[in-house]
């Protein structure tokens, strides 16, 4: 019965999958971002985290998920899943690519689509020791501006008080691959990895708020860092 549930059917990932993902993201995409696109990496916290982590980032481009995968440590790269929308990536080659190359987990954006609560699905993955990459804005939105975070991150973090939430700010990737374009034109950008946030018994709204403020603060600091006075 549970076999019909795609998230539970997932086999324990093998060493082969880990090697493929390390080559794909830590070597290939890292070189594309570093040398071709010229993405600047800024790490505010050098400590590497073992165990499940919730990465939270703003979302403007299809490149965002790839960029985030390049900062996940090698040891956990095959255990890290981007959360993507079923209605957008639901069929054909897109779906295959998302599942096997991006390691994505597809959820429905609305709660009642097939009777399954997407939060439950992600909750189960965290219990199974997987890390998640969330884009709580829920959509790529307007280029260069950040929408309000949905409360999914709050729900997940409040159910798992020990799991750190790492806020990540992505700046300028939308210029390389804007919404509605298929050609990547290198235009630089910045990726800021913030200090992990650990929550104990804050409410869902509090967690969502704190995370959103953390990402917004990073955006603000970045804007002022290289400004001429």
């Amino acid at each position, binding site marked *: 019965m549970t076999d019909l549930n795609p998230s539970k059917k997932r086999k324990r990932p093998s060493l082969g999958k880990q090697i493929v993902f390390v080559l794909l993201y830590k070597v290939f995409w890292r070189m594309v971002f570093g*040398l*071709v*696109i*010229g993405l*600047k990496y800024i790490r505010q916290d050098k400590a590497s985290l073992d165990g499940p982590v919730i990465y939270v980032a703003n979302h403007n481009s299809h490149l965002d998920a790839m960029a985030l995968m390049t900062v996940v440590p090698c040891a956990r790269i095959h255990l890290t899943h981007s959360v993507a929308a079923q209605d957008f990536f639901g069929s054909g080659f897109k779906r295959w690519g998302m599942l096997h190359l991006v390691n994505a987990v597809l959820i429905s954006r609305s709660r009642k689509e097939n009777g399954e609560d997407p939060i439950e699905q992600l909750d189960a993955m965290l219990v199974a020791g997987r890390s998640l990459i969330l884009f709580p804005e829920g959509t790529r939105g307007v280029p260069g501006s950040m929408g309000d975070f949905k409360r999914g991150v709050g729900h997940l973090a409040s159910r798992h008080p020990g799991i750190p939430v790492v806020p990540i700010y992505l700046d*300028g990737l939308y*210029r390389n691959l*804007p919404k509605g*374009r298929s*050609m990547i*034109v*290198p*235009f*630089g*950008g910045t990726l800021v990895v913030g200090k992990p946030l650990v929550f104990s018994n804050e409410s869902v709204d509090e967690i969502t708020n704190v995370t959103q403020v953390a990402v917004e603060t990073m955006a603000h600091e970045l804007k002022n860092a*290289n*400004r*001429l006075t």
Partner: protein
Amino acid sequence: MNKLIDAWGMNAEVQWVILIILCILVFSSTAWYILGKIKPSKLATELQVRTRSWWIMCVCFILSTVVHPVITHLGLAFLSYALLREMYPLLKLDQRERNVVLLCYAVVPVQYALAYYGKTEIFLAFIPVFMFVIIPFVLVTRGETQGLVRSISLLPYSLVAWVYGMSHLALLFQMPEIPGFTAGPEGLLLYLIFLVGMNDVMQFAWGKTLGKHPVLPRVSPNKTWEGLIGGVLSTTLLAVGLRFLTPLGMWEAAFTGFCVAVAGFMGDAIASGIKRDVGVKNSGNAIPGHGGYLDRLDGFSAAAAPFFHLIYFFSSAS
């Protein structure tokens, strides 16, 4: 196997200059380390970071210069590309100009391929003649005239400044045979890299120690007359001292050194002005202590073409 050894076999002149560069690096690393131990200060830390970056840059430059010409061409092409893609986001280009920007990136490999295959005439005309017309035309075909003048000026300028200029370093490999000159294109390349690098260091050093009167107070407050004059004089002397890497006589080398130093300063000043206009301190953070690619390469890209033409002029005149 013999061929492999030949490829690595450097001539004596090149070995000497590499030895000198390594000595300077070892000396300055030790000096700043001791300075930092005796009197820890912000300046000492900055000098240490800068020297560490110089180490990496020198090792990359030397290796890519002496190993094989293909590596040299690829390395230089990458630097040109890195300059373009570092500056385009800062220059606030319209998103609808993406296709033209892609065309500008595509110019880089073509230009370096022309240098590699020795098509000197087309190489010299490709950007300032052909691309100078093609890029504005492609911009016009968009049918949008608002902001057109800005893009028409900016994109060809970026190509001439950062691709055409830099690519003359690759053209040094096409220098005709000069009797009695053994250091080869690698020697000339290292000579220019050494001069421009030392020019920056010397202007920084003279400016920090003696500098009082700013040259361009509103563009770059750190550049002083003392730094400029001290830097130009030191570079001219160095150019004479290292002329065994070139086919030049003493006065020719002094003149070349003077021109390289002045051109390096000009490139630096222009880059400062551009950065100030777009409102950033540094063009990036790729090189710790120095900033981005443009912050380090502004002098090279301005001095490369004058250097090539001076060498060509002097060696064909004699």
